[in-house]
């Protein structure tokens, strides 16, 4: 087998590992939700963490973002975007949550 098909095999395995990982995480999320019921305390936290893990798995195995030198600039871009996004989302939720609280907005 030449070097090329060897690399092809390796890269395909990488995709398959990513797929397997994502699939496992997805099954875990739904299994937890069905088994324990989403309202159970702690379950949503677990689901959130698994979701985060899934994001990382897909970024690494599908989008090939990692800490290798050659993908630094993508990593930088993703990290910067995450920073801005966190500022925007957390700020929004903080401000509007506070406003809702102070204005007794319980629209039901």
């Amino acid at each position, binding site marked *: 087998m030449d070097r090329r098909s060897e690399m092809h095999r390796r890269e395909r395995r990488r995709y398959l590992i990513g797929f397997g990982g994502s699939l496992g995480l997805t099954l875990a999320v739904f299994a937890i939700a069905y088994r324990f019921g989403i309202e159970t305390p702690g379950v949503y936290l677990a689901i959130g963490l698994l979701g985060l893990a899934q*994001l990382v798995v897909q970024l690494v195995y599908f989008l090939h973002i990692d800490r290798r030198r050659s993908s630094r600039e993508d990593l930088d871009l993703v990290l910067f975007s995450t920073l801005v996004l966190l500022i925007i989302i957390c700020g929004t939720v903080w401000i509007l949550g506070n406003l809702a609280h102070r204005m007794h907005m319980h629209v039901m």
Partner: protein
Amino acid sequence: MKRAPTHSYPGINLGERHASAHKATEVVTFGFWVFLMSDLVYFGLMFAIYITMIDAQAGGPGPHELFDLHSIFAQTLILLTSSLTVGLAMLALKYNLPRVRIVFWFAVTLVLGLSFLVLEVRDFMAMAEKGGVPQRSGFLSAFFGLVPLHGLHVAAGCLWLIVLGIQLRVMGMTDRIKSRVVRLALFWHFLDLIWIGIITIVYFGGLAYG
């Protein structure tokens, strides 16, 4: 052939075998990444709005009445599989496999994308039957501002798959087409990432806090 470090495009790439396409692709792909990040802000804001509006149900139907986890589970599996198949199309391109392999994986991806859309639209119709229309409440407006936005992206991705499939036949394996395949794969993976956010925040978050 040793490439200068500034020309080695990270992430999904075509590799050394496509030297001429690789260099042109590098700039375009980086630009596409920047576009995706801009798009990500759109989604991020819609997530933020959804979070602030979970309570704004105004007496209308809420997540418990409306969300169908079985269907969401099926959609998740379909989208995840399509991410794999688009990746395999990418690999077929990268390793110069016969063009028919690329077209095959494109076709599989397209079928999966369309099935996802069918399931999603069926969900929306089921919601509407239960009174879950966007005109009903702020919560439903936020839901229908976000989830169909993702669906619209998937639909755009399907259109792109079709156009690119035709271009593969008509224009052949030019550098330009190769670079478009790379970007399409990026786009498709990106949509999968957004979908993870949607199941975690919109569906499970809605059920937990709505």
